[in-house]
């Protein structure tokens, strides 16, 4: 399948890229990993007149901890998360998620930032970043601004990024002591989108009660869904079996799935209930609790 023709631009700096985006406006799309965009172009579901390839901009492929946050640069690939010792040792939710995104070959090109900027509610990082309380840095011609992840996803394939802005960095708050996270996904086969998936990040207080909690859902709505009521139900409580079951039901109630080949509405909601309980149990165990 051959995409429609386009003009190709390969800026060497973020400044050049945003200047191009500013000049080209809605006619341009950003090409980073390309693992979502190129299939869309080949199917001609999208036919932008310009592609701005950011892959040749140096210095954007980092994954590092600095200033109390894990910082993920615009060109960090999924494989870079998987290869990162700091991610594996301190951010188990991210480590879980990156290994179930698409397949190993796709992960060698696909970027974390692209997974968010694409705005697809079936993608995995949106819910992961919601649960982690991440922050997005968007850089435009007049400078950078920070966007809390909670106000980043506006609708299906729609984000808070303006046409002349580049998602340049993701910041994930460094975990407090007694923190743990987990991502639990059901997919029909490697490479499929989630039938449903649940991200959970938890911090326990010294007395074993829940000091902080994030729960978010993948592919059961038009945007990724933060399960606020489930979070509130757990906050300040001891996360025992009854509390986990209660929160899991509230998460299922928050899901707004549509029926498709992957299952009925009832099935998917119940799946969210089961996966939420599993994600919470794993997160609590990793936080050193549940004993």
């Amino acid at each position, binding site marked *: *399948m*051959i*995409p*429609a*023709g*386009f*003009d*190709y631009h*390969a800026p060497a700096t973020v400044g050049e890229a945003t200047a191009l985006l500013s000049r080209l406006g809605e006619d341009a799309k950003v*090409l980073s990993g*390309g*693992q979502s965009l*190129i*299939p869309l*172009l*080949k199917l001609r579901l999208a036919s932008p007149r310009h*592609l701005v*390839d950011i*892959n040749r901009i140096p210095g954007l492929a980092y994954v590092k901890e600095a200033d109390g946050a894990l910082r993920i640069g615009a060109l960090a690939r999924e*494989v870079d998360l998987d290869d990162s010792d700091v991610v594996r040792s301190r951010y188990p939710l991210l480590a879980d998620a990156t290994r179930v995104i*698409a*397949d*190993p*070959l*796709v992960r*060698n*090109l696909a970027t974390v930032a692209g997974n968010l900027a694409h705005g697809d509610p079936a993608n995995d990082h949106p819910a992961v970043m919601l649960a982690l309380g991440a922050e997005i840095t968007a850089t435009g011609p007049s400078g950078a601004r920070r966007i809390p992840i909670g106000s980043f996803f506006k609708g299906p394939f729609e984000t808070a990024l303006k046409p002349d802005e580049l998602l340049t960095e993701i910041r994930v708050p460094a975990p407090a002591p007694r923190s743990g996270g987990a991502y639990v996904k059901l997919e029909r086969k*490697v*490479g499929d989108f989630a039938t449903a998936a649940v991200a959970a990040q938890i911090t326990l207080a010294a007395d074993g009660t829940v000091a902080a909690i994030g729960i978010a859902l993948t592919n059961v709505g038009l945007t990724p869904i933060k399960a606020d009521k489930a979070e509130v139900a757990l906050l300040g409580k001891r996360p025992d079996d009854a509390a986990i079951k209660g929160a899991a039901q509230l998460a299922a109630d928050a899901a707004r799935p549509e029926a498709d080949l992957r299952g009925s509405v009832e099935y998917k909601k119940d799946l969210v209930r089961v996966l939420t309980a599993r994600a919470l149990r794993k997160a609590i165990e990793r936080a050193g609790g549940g004993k």
Partner: protein
Amino acid sequence: MNVQVTINGEKLSADVEPRLLLFHLIREVFRLTGTHIGCDTTHCGACTVLLDGRPVKSCTMFAVQAHNREIQTVEGLEQNGALHPLQEGFIAEHGLQCGYCTPGMLMTSKAFLDKHPSPSEDDIRWAISGNLCRCTGYVNIVKAVQHAAAKLRAAVPAGGAR
């Protein structure tokens, strides 16, 4: 646009449309037809090539993105008339039937063994999970990769890589 790329150690260049996909550059412009076009939808991995040593699906990358990068294809596995241990392994263990997925399987396995010389069966299955085979049920492919891993380990002198 002019694209300059090193393929299997040879510097090549071509003038291409930006929309030309990498596998079309490799197969139709440079006539290296060992790289297969399978599903053309980022699923099957028959088109897998190594980009700076990492396996990627060449159906899901533009040729111009390979500018100044290094590509390895299945044609580059054989050295001085000797098959690569992976190629020998696929023959010895019957790691292919129709052979369509084989170039992709070989390239993914090559990159994997370069990084993981002593993999478990689970590790191998994990590594090739982006490459589909509809003939073998994967059993003999896994054996072929194990065969190659053992041979490569034996070839490296103890205490150091080449």
